[in-house]
C-alpha cells in the first residue's frame, strides 16, 4: 500500500486499527487499576488498617523492594500503589501502541515520528522533573 496523499478517501473508510487498539489499552488499564483500588481498600479494611488518619497521611513512595514485599504480604496500601502505577502507565502505553501501529500497520512515517516525540517527552517529564 502506497501512502499516496491522494489515497485519503478510501483509507478513511478502512477501519483504523489504532482506534480499536487504543480503546482496548485504555479500557484494560482502567479496569485493572480500579480492580486494584477495590482490592487494596478491601484488604486494608480486612486488616483493620483503614483509618482517616492513615488515609490522609500515608503517601505514595516509589520503592520497588518495599512494593514487592507489600504485595507479597497482601498489604492493602501496596496494592493501591500498584493501581496508581498501572493508571499512570495506561496513557503512556496507549501512545506506545499507537506509535507501533503507525509504524507497522499504517507505514506512516510522519505520525510515527509525532508519536515517538510525544512518548519521549512524556516519559522525560514523568521521570526527570522533580
Amino acid at each position, binding site marked *: 500500500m502506497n501512502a499516496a496523499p491522494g489515497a485519503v478517501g478510501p483509507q478513511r473508510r478502512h477501519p483504523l486499527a489504532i482506534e480499536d487498539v487504543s480503546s482496548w489499552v*485504555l479500557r484494560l488499564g482502567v479496569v485493572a487499576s480500579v480492580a486494584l483500588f477495590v482490592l487494596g481498600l478491601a484488604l486494608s479494611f480486612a486488616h*483493620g488498617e483503614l483509618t*482517616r488518619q492513615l*488515609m490522609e497521611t500515608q503517601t505514595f513512595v516509589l520503592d520497588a523492594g518495599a512494593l514487592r514485599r507489600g504485595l507479597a504480604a497482601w498489604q492493602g496500601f501496596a496494592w493501591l500503589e500498584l493501581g496508581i502505577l498501572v493508571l499512570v502507565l495506561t496513557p503512556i502505553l496507549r501512545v506506545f501502541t499507537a506509535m507501533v501501529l503507525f509504524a507497522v500497520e499504517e507505514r506512516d512515517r510522519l505520525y510515527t515520528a509525532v508519536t515517538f516525540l510525544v512518548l519521549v517527552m512524556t516519559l522525560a517529564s*514523568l521521570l526527570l522533573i522533580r
Partner: protein
Amino acid sequence: MYGHFAQFSALTFLLEVFAASIAGGVLGSIAGIGGGVIIVPVLTVFLGMDIRYAIGASIVSVIATSSGAGAVYVRDRITNVRIAMFLEVFTALGAIIGAALLAPHLSTHWLSILFGVTLLTSLVPIFRKFGEELPEGVVDDAMAKRLRLDGSYYDKRLGREVAYHVTGIPAASGYMFVAGIVSGLLGIGAGVVKVLAHEIAMRVPSKVSTATSNFMIGVTAAAASGVYLNRHLVLPFVVAPVATGVVVGAFAGTKLMERMSNNHIRQVFAAALALIGVQMLVRGIGGL
C-alpha cells in the same frame, strides 16, 4: 473499640469522596476536562484536605477520567486521533518547559490569577458560538491538509455521519503549548485549554472537541503526575475512591454526551469554564 469507630469514619469518608467523584467524572467526560474542577474543591472545602494533596489526587484521577471516557469515544470514532497525537507534541513540550525552566521563576499565585482571567475572558468567544450546532464554512488550512486532520463522526443525535474540516493549526498549537505549561505549573490537566483550542482555533464540532480533549488529557496528566508522586503529594487511600468514582461517572457521562446536541455540550463546557476561571482566581488571590 476505637478501631471499629475509626474504620467506620474512614468508610464514610471513602463513600463521600467516591460519590463526589462520580459528579466529577460525568462533568469531565462531557466537557472534555479532567474533572478536577469538582474534585479539588470537594476535597479541600468540604472534606478539609490540604490543597496540595487534593491536587495530587485530582491529577492522578484525571488519567482515570481520560482513559475511561477516552476508551468509549475512540471506539465510537468520535475522537480525532491524528489531531490528538499531533497536538500532544506541543502540550508535552509546554509541560517540560513549564516545569523545568519556568517553575523556579514564577509565582503560581499570579499565574493562577492570570490563568483565571484568561479563562473568564475566553467565555466571550464561547458565548458567541451558542446556538451553533455544527461549524460552517470551515476550510482545511495548509497544515491540516498536510497532516490529514479532517475527519467525520457518526452523530447519534443527528442520526447521520458528520464530516468536518479543521483550521487554525498554528494557533491551536500555541494553545496546546500554553496548556502544557499551565498543567506543569499549576497541576491541572488543562483540558479546558484543549477544548478552547478545538472550539475557537480549529473550529471542529463540539463532540469531536471534547472527545479529542478527553483522549489527550490522560497523557498530559500522566506526565504531570510524576512531580506529585516524587514530592510525596499523592495519597493512595484518597486516589482509590476518587479514581473509582470518576471512572463510574465517566462511563455514564459518555452515554449522555453521545446523545446530547453539540450546542448543549458547549453550554456544559461554558459552565465548567466559568467555574474553573473563578476557582483559579480564588486560588491565586487566596494564596497571595
